[in-house]
């Protein structure tokens, strides 16, 4: 259909000597290999990862907190045996924390060390060239991911926390896989990193950012997948308890709660029940352990009233 392979095109643009091999042959392979790492994906997730790899495009992963967005990047890095480079975003993140910074202390030392040998114009030029070279550069995650020679997975976590203006920092990397440093020129990627961005959707990301990424929405899993996740992640749990937990959690999510339980919290709950040595969820346990899944008092009260009180279903 398209005569030019996007990976090939990018490799030529970056001037790579050889085309890095694709990591996955098909979406199905993504699924099995993530499964081996105890990350249970579904069709949509597997497709997104496969296409990200095949088209050499970043993936923007969005969804409620605790549904396995960050874990996805970790699992992928794990599955393809790459190093994970992580940039945790926060409000006030800037260039010097995300991209690179000049190690000015070292630069000062270098200048002072060079002083006694006469101050001709020539030596100043040398010095200037010298202090703006690689050895005085502190690489931050983004530059590190770009300049790495071994295969890496870059994870930009919670990208919705940075200000709209800071998002622009990411754009060059996301579309061109390169970083421009005024004093040094452009640094191009030496391999094609897989890039994941996660967002909890607290604000709308800019169109420019979204346009450069593939988009994957990870919602809450359905009962059977959640059960499988519990079985994979919680050692020593019985299948029936896992099933029951998954069902209770689904019912909890249908209630109008302030904070619906996430997969991470479901797992915590499952672990708690296993430690307590329970084979099934009884009413009494609910009151005692519900605070593991629900984080607001009003939610706990509501859930207890709706699900775990004797008269709930008689009305």
């Amino acid at each position, binding site marked *: 259909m398209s005569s030019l392979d996007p990976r090939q095109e990018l490799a030529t643009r970056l001037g790579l000597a050889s085309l890095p091999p694709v990591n996955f042959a098909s979406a199905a392979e993504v699924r099995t290999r993530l499964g081996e790492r105890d990350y249970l994906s579904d069709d949509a997730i597997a*497709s*997104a990862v496969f*296409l990200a790899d095949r088209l050499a495009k970043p993936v923007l992963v969005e969804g409620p907190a605790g549904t396995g967005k960050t874990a996805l990047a970790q699992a992928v890095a794990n599955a393809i045996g790459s190093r994970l480079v992580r940039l945790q975003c926060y409000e006030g993140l800037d260039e010097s924390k995300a991209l690179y910074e000049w190690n000015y202390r070292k630069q000062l030392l270098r200048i002072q060390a060079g002083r006694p040998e006469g101050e001709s114009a020539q030596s100043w030029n040398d010095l200037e060239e010298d202090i703006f070279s690689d050895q005085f550069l502190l690489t931050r995650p983004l530059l590190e991911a770009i300049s790495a020679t071994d295969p890496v997975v870059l994870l930009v976590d919670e990208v919705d926390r940075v200000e709209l203006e800071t998002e622009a920092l990411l754009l060059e990397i996301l579309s061109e896989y390169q970083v421009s440093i005024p004093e040094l020129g452009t640094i191009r990627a030496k391999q094609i990193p897989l890039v994941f961005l996660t967002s909890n959707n607290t604000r*709308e990301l800019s169109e420019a950012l979204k346009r450069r990424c593939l*988009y*994957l929405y990870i919602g809450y899993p359905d009962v059977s997948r959640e059960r499988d996740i519990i079985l994979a992640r919680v050692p020593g749990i019985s299948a029936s308890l896992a099933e029951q937990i998954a*069902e*209770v959690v689904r019912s909890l999510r249908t209630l109008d709660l302030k904070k619906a339980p996430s997969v991470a919290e479901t797992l915590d709950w499952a672990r708690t029940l296993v430690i307590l040595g329970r084979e099934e969820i009884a009413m009494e346990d609910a009151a005692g352990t519900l605070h593991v899944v629900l984080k607001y008092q009003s939610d706990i009260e509501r859930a207890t009233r709706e699900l*775990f009180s004797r008269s709930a*279903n008689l009305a």
Partner: protein
Amino acid sequence: MLSVLAAFVGELRAAGLPVSMTEHLDAAGALGVIDLGDRREVRDALAVTLVKNGDHLPVFDTAFDVFFSIRGFDVPLPDKAADRDELDGAAGDTTGPSVGDGGGASSLSAEELASLLFRALRDSDQSLLVRGARAAVNRYAGFEPGRPVGGTYYLYRTLRSLQLDRLEELLVAERDAPDDLSHRLASDDARARIELLKREVERAIREHLVEDRGTAALAKSVRKPLPEDVDVMHANRDELAQLERALRPLSRKLATRLARRRRRRRRGPVDLRHTVRRSLSTGGVPLDLRFKPPRPAKPEIIVIADVSGSVASFARFTLHLVHAISTQFSKVRSFVFVDGLDEVTEYFDGVDDPAQAVARINAEADVVAFDGHSDYGRALLSFHERFARDVSRRTTVLILGDGRNNYHQAHAEVVADLGRRARHVFWLNPEPVSYWNSGDSIIDQYAPYCERVVECRTLRQLEAFVGGLV
């Protein structure tokens, strides 16, 4: 394939999804590397490249079903023969309801069909479920070829005939539920399964319609607006529920955005004292200007909302949104009326979730004084009598309503007086501009005294307006 893709992208754009050229190219690239025979994979590839917002996925799915309906694809259905055997086993000597022949399934009796669906749901058997849904549609929908409808009518007919309540009871009874908790779990489970059936039925109906009327025509009639573009006044129950869900993240986002904007505007006027003191270190030259911290003028908001039948949901959404960002205002007071007026501010006090307070308003507010038909004149008069002295130059008054006064007196002079006292008076009207002043709408009598009368039909418009208040 590329032309199908182009048409599909066109349809998505028509439905309001912002699909850019780059995304279109990406989608084409993605189709080049996947297995085009696998419908699921095609769907995922297109979703990943074309949709950039989780809320837009339902709209995408509808469009996808229409454009890439099974019949449109020249791919044989997977193991149709096997399914047929299974069906034959299940339903005696009937032929399976295969895709092409609409008539085949009608020989399945009602009980057989019901038991087939029951088994499909119980065992979570996807392919059996698809067959069952098709059979049900063939049997009950009563298609009338060429009728330009979107399928809701057929859906309703099919679902009614299927007696889903009974099916649900059967499913619940199937699981043994000794105590209350497991009973509740069983019924939630049954409901989720029924939901699956509904979705399959809807899909089967769409397939039928595509065959009947072609892709383009159908796409137009099933096109659903995005949640934020739904006309609040004419939303049906499902849409209202959807709006309700969309509102919470919307108000949260709005609050974050406004708070951020406020924080970023950190410069107030020049602080002379501080600047002069700093200038001492530079020989009295004020190189380094110092600024006073900003004192944001937080407006006071008074909302007066008509909560009579037709505009009630709109009023609810507005109250919800205004209170969700109440930290951005120095004070928010809310009043609701039909023909009597009641203050509901206290309902929002100490409640974390405005939705709860809004629910209480419906139940408790005392808004009917006379006959329960909107009377703007009387309500405004009563507001003026009791609360006019609280309206000051710092107050922004929002009046919500369609201005349909049931031929009562307008008392526009009240609004005029409010306009003199307050900083702004805005009127939000949930009706489209073209309906204003038709019938008993007297919006024009109030309009001259309001700073602006704003048409506010959708959540998007509402959000833009409320965001602009700060």
